[in-house]
């Protein structure tokens, strides 16, 4: 199942899609599945399942803390497939967001096969650009998986063209020059980046990094095809600690606010 189904549906509703991120295994594997199901039920159109990694250079303190908790709780790479399977069972496309080494270690071809087997839609690769390694594109194509690479405000037009040509599913536009983490204002760098990216591709363009409220989502939805939210969801669960039920309720409220936002944009 490609993510394109979800983007087409959002487009036919004349709105942006809401993409929600949470690391697998946080607070534990079953807890992350329950949380992702709640996010789907409250209005996420696409789910990004994070794969916790020991050296997450693109992540700020919030997602670092969640990944560390997952790893200390014994998270294994195979748990990501169980998590994807649970999300896919809801009918909502699930992509995995992962740093490259765990995939390389698992075996690129084997990872693609198991991800496809779990019903996963594809992979987002924050530290793999299309020119870094030739193995992923061929494995992804063999297993009919989306390849989502990132573009950044610092990307030249040439690199944007090269990157979008290698993408399938959607393009991930990082709104800020910085790491993941909720920010209070939206970045002025996002809109011109989306415009440059759209000039190079007909693929949907999602904007992520820093979005935490319905109002920010509405602002971005005015010019992007998808609003991607991560740290705000993680923060909500972290803030509720052991109060799992309270965490899920708060996650639902946040998702509804964001889902309302993408419809106002």
């Amino acid at each position, binding site marked *: 199942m490609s993510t394109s189904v979800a983007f087409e549906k959002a487009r036919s509703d004349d709105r942006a899609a809401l993409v929600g991120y949470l690391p697998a295994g946080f607070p534990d594997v079953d807890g992350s599945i329950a949380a992702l199901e709640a996010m789907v039920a409250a209005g996420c159109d696409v789910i990004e399942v994070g794969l916790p*990694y*020991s*050296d*997450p*250079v*693109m*992540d*700020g*303190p919030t997602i*670092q803390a969640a990944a*560390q908790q997952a*790893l200390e709780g014994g998270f*294994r*790479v195979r748990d990501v497939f169980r998590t994807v399977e649970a999300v896919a069972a809801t009918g909502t496309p699930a992509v995995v967001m992962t740093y*490259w*080494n*765990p*995939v*390389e*270690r*698992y075996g690129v071809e084997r990872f693609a096969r198991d991800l496809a087997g779990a019903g996963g839609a594809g992979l987002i690769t*924050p*530290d*793999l*650009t299309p*020119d*870094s*390694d030739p193995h992923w594109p061929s494995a992804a194509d063999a297993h009919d998986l989306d390849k989502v*690479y*990132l*573009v*950044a*405000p*610092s*990307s*030249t037009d040439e*690199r944007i063209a090269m*990157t979008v040509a290698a993408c399938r599913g959607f393009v991930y536009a*990082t709104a*800020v*020059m*910085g*790491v993941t983490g909720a920010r209070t204002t939206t970045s002025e760098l996002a809109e011109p980046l989306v415009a440059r990216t759209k000039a190079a591709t007909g693929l949907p363009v999602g904007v992520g990094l820093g979005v935490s409220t319905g109002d920010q989502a509405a602002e971005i939805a005015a010019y992007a095809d998808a609003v991607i939210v991560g740290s705000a969801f993680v923060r909500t669960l972290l803030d509720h600690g052991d109060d799992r039920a309270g965490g899920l309720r708060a996650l639902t409220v946040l998702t509804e606010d964001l889902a309302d936002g993408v419809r106002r944009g």
Partner: protein
Amino acid sequence: MTDLTTAPASALTGAPTSYDADEQGWFGDFGGRFMPEALVAALDELTVAWREAVADPAFMAEFDAIQRDYAGTPSRLYDAERLTRRIGGARILLKREDLNHTGAHKIRNVLGQALLTKRMGKSRVIAETGAGQHGVASATAAAYFELDCTVYMGAVDTRRQALNVARMELLGAKVVPVESGSATLKDAINEAMRDWVASVDHTAYLFGTAAGPHPFPSMVRDFTRGIGDEAREQCLELTGRLPDAVAACVGGGSNAIGLFTAFLDDPEVRIYGFEPGGDGVETGRHAATIHAGDSGVLHGARTFVLQDEDGQTVESHSISAGLDYPGVGPQHAHLAKTGRAEYRPVTDAQSMDALALLARTEGIIPAIESAHALAGAFDVARELGPDATVLINLSGRGDKDMETAREWFALGEKTQEQV
């Protein structure tokens, strides 16, 4: 006789070797660039700036002048007769990088990168540090070139190396303790990269070793290859021929590649890298990345990595903070795979014995990092016998390690008892 202090050839214009990276930074199967797209433009810009700089005679003249007048290079090649007699094997020559300004080879790299930073018009530098040597060198270069400087250092290391934190602060740098992950060198690198993503328009990342994404492994090698270029000439002058073997310790690999490069295409010269074996490779508590790691991607390059079944980085262990890193520069991975260089582990205990031996026989206290090279090279000297010459890179001095040495050898306890 060649006078190296006035030799016109710059340390930067060394000839290419058969083991260099391709245009994309690949050393065979290793290296490359596995980085967030946000940093690719900066790495491309750095690659171009570095290539242009080394082709510019004005830049090279300035580089050479600072290395000579400020850092104190060429460092001496010392004929260690007492040590040679004591070991009872090959003639041992020591490349005295310990006598450089700030006490190690690291100053060569930072002066090169800081000069490039100036040329690129950036006003701030960041660096990671383990033992604090690269942090001190970076803070020194920042003071010299009037650059703002922030050094990331694992919180565990800021406690282990408190004196170096003080040195950096005295030099005007800001030291940020990193609490995330294992709170050591690898996490300091992560945090420096996070800073860099957000500050890249005005900030240069002074990477401390010949690892990381392209162009760092090649660029850092070029800035440190003066070690080997000088040593080669000095050895020819002293002995009339090339050494039979060269040896260095390998953390990330900058002092080692700086020495090895001049000899890579001399097949008759054996090349040895000594990795931190910690408590012994068999105990699992070590940092012998090439010997015991597997191919993987860490900090932007494919190389050997200490990792678990899932590709999560495993914490390394070494008595030497400067070698305590679960990755290694990709050119070393390539040299190991092609068999051009041999890498062997040396334990904490063997290194500390070598440290004491050099102190007693020659009156030189080496850095614990460099003591790994000594310990490993002593075996090589015995293997090769008295007709051979072994050239060892004494990458740094031991002042920073006195606290560790005091504890290890229980120094001062007898004196205390007499009081």
